[in-house]
């Protein structure tokens, strides 16, 4: 493809020989714009100065060629520049007629982007087409000399974005260190080695449709980021030369984080760049993983750092959180994770013969958690039964919340890998669950007490009714018997 493009580039001037008096004259005057235009892609497609500036390109008489009657427009100002580019580049049919097969509508996209907003200069948008593409020496993106070619675009964006004084006018809170961060990223390091395939600014931010990260239609909106990164990282063909896996996005989508972000739309869930960084994207190293996870999972990280596992993991060069939880496909933590069964997490290092201390602790922790869960379920079931029978158990339900809280705390407490402390945490919950169970049973007993009480009362009253009935019969028969 590159060869084909290159061939096209060099062969073009040969059929650009048409009447263009504007260029001829200006070249003879050494006008810098005209010199640049010699290499312009537009000229190679047969366009002339007059196609943007107006006028008659066939006349060599300056007064005729540059007269208003010939439609001469002069130097376009401000938004007129982009409007004029848009005249062709927004018109798919016209673009196809020049043999162009790429996308169109860039002008519309530019207007919708952050750069399409009003600049500090009244009546002008922040960026025009020429801001990035240049004016008279416009080259194809694939042309290495183009300011927007993969290897140049980073510098082109940085012209403004690396300039705090300039950026302050538009968004004082926006950082201006993107380029220096980028230089430290995997992308940036490869870029410095002149790799044109590696991600640049436009790979993530898009070229024309640049929108802020809080815009839901932006390519860098949290929920869109996996797709944006996946455009390259999920493409096995594209990534083949880098020898890294291409299933990260797919795994992430199925992970607890991916489901939280993409399905539950929980904006606090991490996406790719929350762990890898954005401009400084880099896979976290073994030693830094717990710091990365710890930005959100602070307690777990803190407990882990104090735990006996910390030293052992460091010695064996095991990544801290990742060793048990994985990376891209992190699943919701379950009690089942604490297991010394075959295939269980703890069993990877601990067995009854090797490292038996941890083996026993894991067994004990698991059984404590299991009994907490089953006590909770039992208590809840008893309360359900009581409620079904119409008994009021709101207070007990309130107490039961604490058991759930203990369960959640216990899940965190696991990371200290300290059985005695874990016992302490779980025992609190077990106690509450037992109390609640007792209360639930009492409520159910009360229900039966009411039913039996009614039965007894009804029996007494019915008995009294019968006796009274017989008594009335008796006294009313009296006149006959006496």
């Amino acid at each position: 493809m590159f060869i084909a493009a290159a061939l096209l580039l060099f062969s073009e001037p040969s059929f650009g020989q048409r009447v263009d008096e504007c260029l001829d004259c200006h070249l003879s005057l050494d006008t810098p714009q005209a010199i640049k235009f010699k290499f312009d892609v537009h000229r190679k497609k047969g366009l002339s100065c007059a196609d943007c500036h107006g006028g008659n390109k066939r006349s060599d008489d300056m007064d005729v060629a540059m007269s208003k009657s010939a439609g001469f427009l002069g130097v376009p100002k401000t938004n007129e520049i982009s409007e004029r580019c848009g005249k062709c580049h927004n018109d798919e049919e016209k673009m196809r007629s020049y043999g162009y097969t790429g996308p169109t509508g860039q002008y519309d996209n530019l207007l919708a982007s952050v750069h399409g907003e009003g600049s500090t200069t009244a009546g002008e948008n922040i960026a025009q087409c020429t801001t990035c593409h240049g004016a008279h020496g416009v080259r194809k993106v694939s042309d290495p000399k183009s300011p927007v070619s993969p290897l140049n675009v980073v510098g082109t964006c940085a012209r403004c974005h690396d300039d705090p004084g300039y950026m302050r006018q538009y968004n004082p809170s926006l950082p201006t260190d993107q380029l220096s961060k980028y230089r430290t990223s995997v992308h940036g390091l490869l870029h410095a080695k002149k790799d044109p395939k590696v991600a640049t600014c436009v790979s993530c931010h898009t070229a024309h449709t640049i929108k802020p990260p809080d815009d839901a239609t932006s390519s860098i909106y949290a929920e869109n980021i996996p797709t944006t990164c996946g455009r390259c990282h999920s493409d096995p063909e594209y990534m083949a030369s880098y020898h890294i896996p291409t299933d990260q996005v797919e795994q992430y989508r199925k992970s607890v984080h991916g489901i939280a972000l993409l399905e539950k739309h929980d904006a606090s869930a991490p996406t790719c760049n929350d762990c890898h960084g954005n401009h400084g994207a880099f896979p976290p190293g073994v030693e830094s993983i717990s710091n990365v996870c710890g930005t959100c999972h602070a307690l777990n990280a803190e407990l882990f750092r104090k735990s006996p596992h910390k030293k052992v993991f460091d010695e064996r060069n095991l990544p801290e959180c990742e060793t048990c939880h994985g990376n891209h496909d992190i699943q919701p933590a379950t009690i089942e994770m604490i297991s010394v069964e075959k295939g269980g997490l703890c069993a990877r290092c601990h067995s009854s013969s090797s490292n038996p201390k941890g083996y026993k602790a894991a067994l004990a922790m698991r059984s404590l958690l299991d009994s907490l869960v089953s006590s909770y379920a039992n208590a809840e079931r008893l309360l359900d039964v009581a409620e079904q029978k119409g008994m009021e158990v709101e207070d007990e339900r309130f107490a039961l919340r604490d058991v759930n809280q203990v369960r959640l705390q216990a899940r965190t407490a696991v990371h200290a890998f300290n059985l005695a402390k874990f016992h302490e945490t779980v025992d609190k919950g077990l106690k509450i669950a037992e109390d609640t169970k007792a209360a639930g049973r009492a409520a159910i007993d009360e229900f039966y007490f009411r039913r039996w009480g009614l039965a007894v009362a009804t029996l007494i009253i019915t008995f009294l009714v019968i006796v009274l009935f017989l008594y009335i019969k008796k006294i009313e028969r009296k006149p006959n018997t006496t």
Partner: protein
Amino acid sequence: MNRLYQWFDERVSLSAFIEFIKHKEVPKHRHSVWYYFGGVTLFLFIVQVFSGILLLFYYRPGADTAFESIKFLMTKVQFGWLIRSIHSWSANLMILAAFIHMFSVYLTKAYRKPREITWITGMLLFFMALAFGFSGYLLPWNELAFFATKVGTDIAGSVPLIGKPLLVLLRGGDNVTGATLSRFFGFHVALFPAIFTVLLGIHLFLVQIQGMSTPLNPKEDKKYDSMPFFPNFVLRDLLLWLIVLNILAVLAVFFPWELGVKADLFASAPAGISPEWYFLFMFQVLKMLPSHVWFIEGEVLGIVLFGIAGALWTVVPFLDKKSSRGQQSRFFTYVGIFAIIFIIVFTIVGWLAS
């Protein structure tokens, strides 16, 4: 025992009373069964008094505490659920028994001379019972009661001339608020019981001294069989009371009265707001009336008509001259049957509508 009896006899002449009771007779005929409904109503009233007093031990009036105290009563206090359910069920059964008592008396024309005063006090007692029901309904301060009271007092507010002052008097302000609750509580446990007791005293006293009325039957001018009031009739009364008590206990245990959710002054009205069943027929008729009849507002017309009907019904002994003379008065029988059918039909329509 004897001396004690004599001690009292010398002072309050018990023997005269016993003598009276001994000779009191209750007629026996095919309509005798209706005699028992007055007694049943009385019994349910007694149940109301006792269960009401018991509820007072835990009830705390006030918008902040009423609902919570009833909840507390029903969940924490031993047998609290029973007492409240009994009070609610007994109230409804009492109104039902009063309805039956009233219509049986009406259709047997027992209101005729000389029992006009008994009838009028009876009617007043009936209105009081409805007022008891209306005021008591609000006391748990739950959502349904709150809106039913709002609607109910609104209707009272559209009575011509006195409507507005009446509304403010009932609500203790322009809106149903905690002030209304305090007021209704006062009505329900102090004012109404006082009036009711006096009226009931007159009513029962007259029933005792005048004896039971016999059906109007000019053709067969025979003397009815009778049974002694004491002990025969009293024991039968007791028998029935026990059965009613049993029904009440079963209802209270198997269909405990719901508490619902607490009233929220600013919440929008939930669907299915309806008054207690004994107001339903009036509520339904008022709802079905066109918004304007001639130049009067439909609702106002309805209220006026119900008012006039109630007043005429109360003074029926003076209107029905024929039965006072001992003649059949078919017209009033038809009016009574019409009233029964009217109430039943519109209660059912209202019940289906909500």
